[in-house]
């Protein structure tokens, strides 16, 4: 279950090459996109594209970085929060409804996990949470990150991360899930 991305690149003194980095990490980033996008592959494609575009833009600043994978993970999580928040806005929901993408997004997880009803329901329940709670709970449950690591990755305080986790679990409990860590 651990999705922690370990860097295979040990070139702290030189600028990381895009090709090597992409080959090593794009599958993991795509998986994060599927996870945060509720199984929507288009959503995952967009996230992967955005993450590696950020990498291209910041590449010259990353020569001191020891773990590019951790950096990409952090960028992916933050970009996912931004995308989810944009999608949650009133205008965005109107646009999505107009182009009937909401149905497609909702159907993707169900179609991917059609054999496992509980897994599909869990993914749908996660998608109903506010963006920050979705990401924080995913990092906590699926990546088994500590609150300290989550706080560092998302530039939040530990107290705020704790509050997000507690609220997320409360919401899930109210939906009938046995929500505990």
């Amino acid at each position, binding site marked *: 279950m651990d999705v922690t991305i370990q860097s295979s690149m040990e070139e702290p003194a030189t600028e990381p090459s895009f090709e090597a980095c992409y080959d090593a990490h794009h599958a993991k980033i795509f998986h994060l996109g*599927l996870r945060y996008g509720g199984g929507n592959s288009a959503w995952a494609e967009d996230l992967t*594209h955005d993450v590696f575009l950020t990498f291209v833009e910041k590449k010259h600043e990353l020569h001191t970085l020891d773990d590019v994978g951790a950096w990409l993970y952090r960028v992916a999580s933050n970009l996912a929060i931004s995308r989810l928040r944009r999608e949650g806005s009133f205008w965005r929901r109107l646009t999505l409804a107009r182009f009937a993408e909401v149905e497609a997004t909702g159907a993707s997880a169900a179609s991917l996990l059609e054999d496992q009803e509980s897994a599909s329901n*869990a993914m749908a329940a996660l998608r109903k949470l506010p963006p920050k709670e979705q990401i924080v709970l995913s990092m906590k449950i699926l990546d088994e990150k500590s609150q300290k690591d989550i706080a560092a990755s998302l530039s939040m305080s530990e107290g705020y991360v704790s509050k997000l986790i507690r609220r997320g679990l409360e919401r899930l409990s109210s939906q009938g899930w046995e929500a505990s860590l």
Partner: protein
Amino acid sequence: MTESPQSFSKALREADAELRAIGVPSASAARIRRRLAARTSKRSRQSSRLMWCGLAVFAAAMVLLFASNTPKRKRAAVAPPLVAGFHIETGNLAFVYSTIPNHLMLDRGPFEAVHEQLGVRISGNGPVSIHAVAHGLVLLDGTAQIRVMRRNPTQPRLLIETSYGRVETRGTVLTLSQTRAGGHLTVSEGSLRFIVPGAQTRLVVPGDTIEWP
């Protein structure tokens, strides 16, 4: 939901494992590659365009800098107007005139006139009437400061005629005033001889003043 509560963590982990098993579809991978390639090449084109714009601005700035530092063509020296043998260097020409040869009349100052043949510079603020002769000047009316350029001993002295006597000098600065009622002279620099017909010649030095009649 179900009757007995299910473990959310367990269900979510199962879902995540399924998603991981999907991997990256080849079509998705190709699309991501294509989009990234398009965006990065667009950015490189933009940066190249920016570089050329920067170079153009730099070149324009250098041209402007060069143009501003190029020495301007010097205006041709215009000789001051010549009136009655005097070059009028300063003064309103509307108030400078001459009715007879070598006779200069300056109605309003300030003015500055130079007679190069005599080696004399005359300046003043009020109306002056002055006449140039072979070896000197005749101050007919008005007040003027007269600067006589230094002369060699071999050259003849400059003569300045007044109603009372004659000034002879080889170089001096004096203020001379002549009216119908009389006049006075004061020496500022150098010295002069004041010759009164029928009287003793007097040497006048800086600070001395002679008044007449």
